[in-house]
């Protein structure tokens, strides 16, 4: 692999692909230097909070609005947190790595929330710790209002423990199935009794509901509280393996190479769960750039959209159209299918999602109408087809500038190399009847649309 190819791979996995400007400015730099820049930018950006759309009004202050209006308003505001975030992922001036890490943890600590302010707080919490320490991140999530509600921990009381949070903490967030007993779940649940939140979504420790008694967790006796339970879970190497495996699936390959995962788990554990160390171990490994790990992952709907936005500076007149596309493709931010998150991989693909994915470039570039109905509302009984016009504008110039001086014979190869991560050769004859050759710009544009309509574009 040559350096530009390595950078493309890095940028797809650590972010959402390269914008033409990034490509021009970085293609000559060393991989290590670019990795260092990615981390540096991410750390700077992680200090900034997402505040947009909060307007300082929390739902509790909207008492005058009717319940229905409030629900509608909340839906719109959650929707704008969603679309703001997708646009941030697609914005080359933002830190791609930080957004990608946040997306990873957002899927890991999967949580559905209906209160916009709470959703924003959770997102800020994840951003803050996304490249920090995993222990801090788990502790913060255990105190997050949305998560407490989602996993019923506000109902976890001394007299009547609710195990939901304690169970998912172990099964899905940290150590994984098979490494604890049912008894451990029960005892951990006791340690998290009284961990609740107030109406603003802020963490509240309800002393009177907390069980201060002795618990036996992982065979150890003590008056454990929630923090100590988390520490004891993290003391087990299995936790570092569980997270390393998940990160490997997300950033490297759905197919696991056990040796690589073992190595990552060791780095992660030995660094005391430093997430940056784990991520550097991935991006700085030789095997990360092995052919078998390049162009083999099916992009999630969000990665697909953010990637297109990033490459072509797509702007939406009505960003809510993005949510409609997310729904049709099966990934809505702040709305995972369940606490296990999005399954990913081949599960993104069926006949309906594939056709929409292959047409997505046409949709964005041509303001197409999406003639689809979406399964969503349990309430509304609108069975009439909803046509959604996606009004987007594209800045094609930076992309065109990359290729305007390219020899026509090499154009397909060069453009394919920029747009696609797969290694197969593109065949001129595939495109023959589907491009317009009037002038260079038409040629580049139509060819670009065609390449983005290939199944290969679904991979990264």
């Amino acid at each position, binding site marked *: 692999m040559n350096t530009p190819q390595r950078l493309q791979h890095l940028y797809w996995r650590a972010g959402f692909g390269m914008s033409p400007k990034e490509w021009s400015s970085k293609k000559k730099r060393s991989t290590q230097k670019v990795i260092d820049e990615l981390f540096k930018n991410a750390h700077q950006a992680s200090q900034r909070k997402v505040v947009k759309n909060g307007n300082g009004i929390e739902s509790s202050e909207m008492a005058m609005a009717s319940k229905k209006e409030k629900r509608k308003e909340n839906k719109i505001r959650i929707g704008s947190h969603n679309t703001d975030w997708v646009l941030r992922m697609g914005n080359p001036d933002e830190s791609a790595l930080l957004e990608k890490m946040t997306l990873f943890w957002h899927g890991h600590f999967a949580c559905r929330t209906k209160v916009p302010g709470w959703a924003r707080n959770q997102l800020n919490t994840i951003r803050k710790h996304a490249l920090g320490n995993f222990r801090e991140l788990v502790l913060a999530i255990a105190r997050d209002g949305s998560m407490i509600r989602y996993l019923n921990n506000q109902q976890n009381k001394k007299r009547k423990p609710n195990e939901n949070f304690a169970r998912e903490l172990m099964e899905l967030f940290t150590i994984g199935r098979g490494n604890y007993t049912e008894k451990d779940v029960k005892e951990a649940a006791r340690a998290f009794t009284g961990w609740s939140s107030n109406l603003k979504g802020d963490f509240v420790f309800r002393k009177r509901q907390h069980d201060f008694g002795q618990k036996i967790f992982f065979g150890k006796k003590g008056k454990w509280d929630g923090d100590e339970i988390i520490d004891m879970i993290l003391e087990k190497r299995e936790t570092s393996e569980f997270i390393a495996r998940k990160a490997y699936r997300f950033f490297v390959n759905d197919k696991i190479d056990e040796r690589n995962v073992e190595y990552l788990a060791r780095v992660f554990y030995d660094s005391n769960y430093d997430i940056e160390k784990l991520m550097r171990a991935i991006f700085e490994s030789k095997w990360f750039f092995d052919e078998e790990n390049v162009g083999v992952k099916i992009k999630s709907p969000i990665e697909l959209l953010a990637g297109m936005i990033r490459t072509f500076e797509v702007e939406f007149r009505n960003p809510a159209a993005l949510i409609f596309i997310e729904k049709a493709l099966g990934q809505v931010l702040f709305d995972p299918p*369940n606490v296990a998150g999005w399954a990913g991989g081949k599960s993104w693909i069926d006949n309906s999602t594939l056709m929409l994915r292959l047409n997505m470039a046409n949709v964005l570039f041509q303001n197409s109408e999406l003639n689809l109905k979406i399964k969503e509302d*349990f309430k509304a*009984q609108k069975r009439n087809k909803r046509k959604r016009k996606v009004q987007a504008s594209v800045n094609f110039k930076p992309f065109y500038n990359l290729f305007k001086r390219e020899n026509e014979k090499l154009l397909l190869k060069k453009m394919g190399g920029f747009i696609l991560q797969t290694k197969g050769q593109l065949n001129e004859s595939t495109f023959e009847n589907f491009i317009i050759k009037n002038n260079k710009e038409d040629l580049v544009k139509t060819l670009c649309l065609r390449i983005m309509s290939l199944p290969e574009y679904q991979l990264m």
Partner: protein
Amino acid sequence: MKRRNFIKASTIASTSVMVPQFLKGVNSENIARSRQGKNLVVIQFSGGNDGLNTIIPYQNDRYYKNRPTLGIKANEVLKVSDNLGFNPAMASLRSLYDEGLMSIINSVGYPNPDRSHFRSMDIWHTASDSNEYLSTGWLGRYLDSNCSGCQSPHHALEVDDTLSLSLKGVEKNGFAMSNPNQLKRISDNKFLKSIVHHHEHEHEENVEYLYKTLADTHASANYLYQKSKVHKTEVKYPKGAFANDLKQIAELMTADADIKIYYANLGGFDTHVGQKNKQARLLKTYSDAMSAFVKDLKNNGLLDDTLIMTFSEFGRRVQQNASGGTDHGTANNVFLIGGNLKRKGFYNSAPDLKKLDKGDLIYQVDFRKIYATILDDWLDASPTQILGKQFEKIII
């Protein structure tokens, strides 16, 4: 180039250009083939249908005590047994009941019920326990298992634009199509046809998977389009999208399409506010469409080989709320309709309104027993393999 020109230029060779290859390559032998095998039709009520106002325990004082305004008066109930009857909007379904074409299973649910729409629907789709998370559906796993004829994705067809989790397997998926003409128009994209044609085998698994899905989509789109033209029903269906979905299913079945499982949806059952009229409208839509559908199948000699299962992700609380509606509950009734039911009428006794769990019904029949029976008796598959554990069968 100006934007307008660009749009013009790029549409020239784009999706809007289509040449329907009508009936090209129809396998007429296939169309004429005499039909064989059984069909399953699954109807999903989304939102949590209020089972207690669907099949009404009109003799039960507790029902009326819990639902002072929402309860359906005994003299309005379409009585079919000495303690149960249909919602007055369901006259046409009641006729099916009277003809012995219906079996109603009361109090269907699962242990530790979840009251979230999404999660509970997930559980019904994946057939998981309530603390277990699966990313494949029970019918998807049926497609994965060694069922004969599962090669083509349209073997399990959802009449909708998007595919439900129920129909997603590990290796195989069902097929989503809301309208054959629209599907044909989308898949008649010349460029996409050309790339399938030009594609040479690669070894990377996911590239192959995407190309195969694309090629299958083209093939299924053509197949379904042709099959949809074979037979036009003579039965008059009510207006509306749901009835139209059932009509399409009946036409494909009559054309002997190579489809084993059909899946259709009716949404809007989340009636927290002003339930009475909303639910009545939905139940009428369902009943009238179902009545036409059953008549259609009967006319074409298909009813004995068809089983129609209707479910919802949960029922509603026994007590009505303050807004003339009901909130999320637990156990609910499941309808089975077909010409060959072993146990007609009510499968079990009415829900127990005395013994509740914090105001909610306690389930009597695990829904996975119904799945297990359908998989074993109706689809000739191995229920234990597909459901991951053994469930006692019931009589269907």
